[in-house]
């Protein structure tokens, strides 16, 4: 379970809070979608929850642990799939995964088998010995995902895991995430694909200007929003149609 209490983040020199007094409870076994326009604060929130950013104020716990007291324990418990392809381009897919898996303490046959199994699931077996520099965007996304789940995390954070990939790659990624969730992994993910979130998430929160404007089960949110046929209608009704450009 993830318990977030009045979490805030204001970047140095920034005029506004990127995340402001945000409180949220995500139950174990959920697939929770953090949705919102560009600059809403989704990545900032995930960065704080994965120890990449220091909150300005507030606190959170993941399965009752916090980074101040249980840093390594918590890092072992969570997995992260960042938005960028966090891979070494001159290493092969296998070598990249071997390294990142080792950093979670995996080794020997367990590590090797886990890599081969995941490469197989993601349809990348025959590219295991190819350098990732030669991979397409979709292939890199899939390797990026494997690097975050090799150690079978209890909680998985994904920042736009399907952005810029073809439909086939997206399906493979979503299907595997559903499988992981069935195995007991709690999933927290950000996305701009609202149709994808509508069918994939058990619950969603729409964030705008660092605050949660609405949260709940997607189907219920659609029902309660007048004239809404899907999550995108709810999203536009809640966040407006004005462009959200930030620099």
């Amino acid at each position: 379970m993830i318990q977030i209490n009045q979490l805030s983040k204001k970047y140095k020199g920034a005029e506004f809070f990127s995340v402001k007094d945000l409180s949220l409870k995500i139950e174990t076994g959920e697939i929770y979608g953090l949705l919102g326009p560009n600059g809403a604060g989704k990545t900032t929130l995930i960065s704080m929850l994965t120890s990449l950013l220091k909150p300005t104020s507030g606190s959170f716990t993941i399965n009752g642990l916090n980074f101040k007291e249980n840093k390594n324990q918590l890092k072992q418990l969570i997995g992260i799939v960042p938005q960028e392809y966090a891979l070494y381009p001159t290493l092969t897919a296998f070598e990249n995964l071997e390294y990142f898996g080792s950093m979670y303490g995996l080794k020997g046959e367990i590590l090797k088998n886990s890599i081969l199994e995941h490469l197989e699931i993601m349809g990348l077996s025959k590219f295991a010995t190819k350098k990732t520099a030669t991979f397409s965007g979709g292939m890199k996304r899939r390797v990026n995902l494997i690097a975050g789940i090799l150690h079978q995390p209890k909680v998985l954070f994904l920042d736009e895991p399907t952005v810029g990939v073809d439909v086939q790659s997206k399906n493979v990624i979503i299907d595997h995430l559903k499988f992981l969730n069935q195995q007991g992994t709690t999933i927290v993910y950000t996305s701009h694909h609202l149709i994808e979130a509508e069918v994939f998430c058990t619950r969603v929160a729409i964030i705008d200007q660092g605050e949660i404007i609405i949260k709940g089960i997607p189907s219920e949110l659609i029902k309660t929003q007048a004239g809404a046929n899907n999550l995108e209608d709810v999203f536009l009704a809640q966040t407006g149609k004005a462009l959200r450009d930030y620099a």
Partner: protein
Amino acid sequence: MHKLWASTYKEMLLLIRDLGGIAILFIMPMLLLIVITLVQDSTFKTINDVKIPVLLVDNDNGEVSKNIIDNLSESNSFEILQKNTEDEAKEAVFAGKYQLAIIIPENLSASLQKKVNQNVEGILSKFGLEEDNSLVEKEAIPAKEVRLYFDPATQLSFKSSVKNGIDKMISKIETQSIYKAFQTELGEEEAVPIFDTENFISFKEVRQTKGNQEIIPNSAQHNVPAWALFAIFFIVVPLSINLVKEKNQGTFVRLRTQPVNYATVLGGKTIVYLVVCLIQFTLMLLVGIFLFPAIGLPQLDVSGKLPMLYAVALFSGLAAIGLGLLLGTIAKTQEQSAPFGAIMVVILAALGGVWVPVFVMPKLMQSISKISPMNWGLEAFYDVFLRNVNFVKILPEISLLLLFFIITILIAIIYNQKKNAV
């Protein structure tokens, strides 16, 4: 330990996949060593193979100018080219066509002779040895000057060594003239000299010996350690770029979310780049031992010194790696780390005495040079190569290098912790 090994293996893979980078890491330092040693070799030779062309205008055409020309020719350092006028010589030198012009004034021989005779006669008359010792009014003889023109681009060290040489030569000619005048005044025949005009006081350089053999320093023993150290420290540039790349390509972000400490990440890089430093050093030693004699340079003598040389190389490598990791930790972009690293290494080399010996630096710079890790490394190398010391003598220097590594790594770790504290 498993994570450290995995980090080391990953670093090794990253390095060997960049063949161009490896070639630069290993070939460029060797090329640098060969070029610098070839250029500097002449300054270490007692007999110079290269003669510097010097313009000479002889307005005297007397015994003194003949003496000057003979002395310059005998020195084997200069090739004398006579010109007719001072203006012609001056123009050629100031245009950079020649390094130096020497202008011997008119009547130098006659005036010197007259002046010497006057002084000798004066002394002898004091002792009552002159037949006519009545006070004769001395004729005023104006002082003569030998004029030197240097190419404005000529280095100061060359200028001062030429000036000292000519000064010494003129003093000798003057002394000989005085002795000769005394001999003439005393009525002795010139053919049978009664004065020994050679210097009574001479000097001899006593060199360090090893067994019964004199240790004679050569350009290889000066250049190989100096430039090997320079190359070792240049590891700062690729190493800092390596770290900055990790940050920019997102892999460092992933590592920050994993249960691995920064020291382990740095440890993997340290091990791989230390091996690179030692391979670089080995290649440079091999160049000194095998290639130098083949291209006419003095051979590098490493007999009995290898363990100590590798100890110095190892600790110098650690100091360089510490600096590279610190720079890579602090820098945000390659545009920051690469030029800063390269210029920093050149500054440390200059302070350390790689370009100019520390003892000729101003006092302030001498004090600053004592805090340059390159100075510690260079002194340790010179101790082993040239001063023939034992291991205990290099302990202070290698301890400082190790301390430098520890401090830079600690700063990098603390900086990273503060920067990424949650």
